[in-house]
């Protein structure tokens, strides 16, 4: 019992000690009438990127991406920050779960 707990604490401690990157590239996204603007964003591969998403609608939305393992609620009229990556080069679709038909976009890492 002691050994795995100690091992877990060691791993957690080393992870916590990982320095956060000071200068993450920042990408802004807007939600208007249940659509993402722009619907396609390019980000550098291999780097942590800060997605700043503003919901201009008067209804909440949930940013979700299976490919990027992200899920975050964006209350009406609010701006939230979501860290993504570092991503391997490729296309990573995302969508607004509450308005899946219209709210769709893709992050292209290159």
């Amino acid at each position, binding site marked *: *019992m002691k*050994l*795995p*707990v100690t*091992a*877990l604490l060691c*791993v957690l401690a080393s*992870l*916590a000690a*990982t320095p*956060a990157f000071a200068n*993450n590239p920042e990408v802004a996204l807007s939600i208007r009438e249940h659509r993402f603007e722009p619907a396609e964003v390019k980000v550098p591969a291999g780097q*942590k990127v800060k997605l700043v998403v503003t919901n201009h609608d*008067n*209804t*909440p*939305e*949930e940013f979700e991406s*299976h*490919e*990027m*393992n*992200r*899920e*975050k*609620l*964006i*209350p*009406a009229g*609010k701006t*939230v*920050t*979501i*860290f*993504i*990556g*570092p*991503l*391997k080069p490729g296309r990573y679709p995302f969508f607004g*779960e*509450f308005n*899946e*038909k219209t709210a769709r976009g893709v992050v292209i890492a290159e």
Partner: protein
Amino acid sequence: MLNSAIIVFRECLEAALIIGIIAAATRGLAGRGRWITGSVLAGLAGSLVVAAGADWIAGLAEGYGQELFNAGVVLLAAGMLAWHCVWMSRHGRELAQSARSVGQAVASGAAAFSALGAVIALAVLREGAETVLFLYGLLAGGEQSPLEVAAGGIAGLAAGALAGYILYAGAVRLPMKAFFAVTNGLIALLAAQMASQGARFLSQADLLPSLADPLWDLSALLPDASVIGRTLNAVVGYRAMPSGIEVLFYALMLAAVLLAMEAVRRMAPPAVPAR
């Protein structure tokens, strides 16, 4: 209406499957129905509070309140599930051996089962809050009538409850010996899944590195959005493209639970009544 039913179903599915597993794992215990119902109601009440306070939570901790809140909820649930597994590894055999001694086991294990009640409440709280916000958005958007929104919500909820019931009904049909192994195994996997979800939220807030994103890609084989993918996600935490940190937390939690169960089993062999 169909759209809203599908989304409500998705949000409910995870909580419903968790309730199904826990209801099966506590089969035959006196007063079980009452505390499961109580936990669901407590979770629902909590979800209304969380939904109402969503703006406030989102603004906490420099905008990462939501991640910290969600990580706290799932990690708390993970700890309680792990504790239950360890407790069961000591008392499970007694329970399996004699359905009559169950009443006694409940008395000594009341704390362990109240932990499972808390897990139900936390699952309902988290998924419920998202559902409430979604339905509120539909009403505020004004594109659907309140009647349509309510009908969609009820249909989705009913479908989610049915999925949970099917899992429960399947589990209770297992023979006694396999039953405890399967339900306890499912609870151990739930604990691992909750730990990995916690890691995902902390990595989203940049408090943990993602390590590799994704670590592997099975989306061509079994996408997350498919019915099987979603069900496996809710039951065992399947994800087609997990990040390294999620996989690490999953594996560490599962290993810790299994090792602790084994250690407890060795330390104190349960009293087996001679027959």
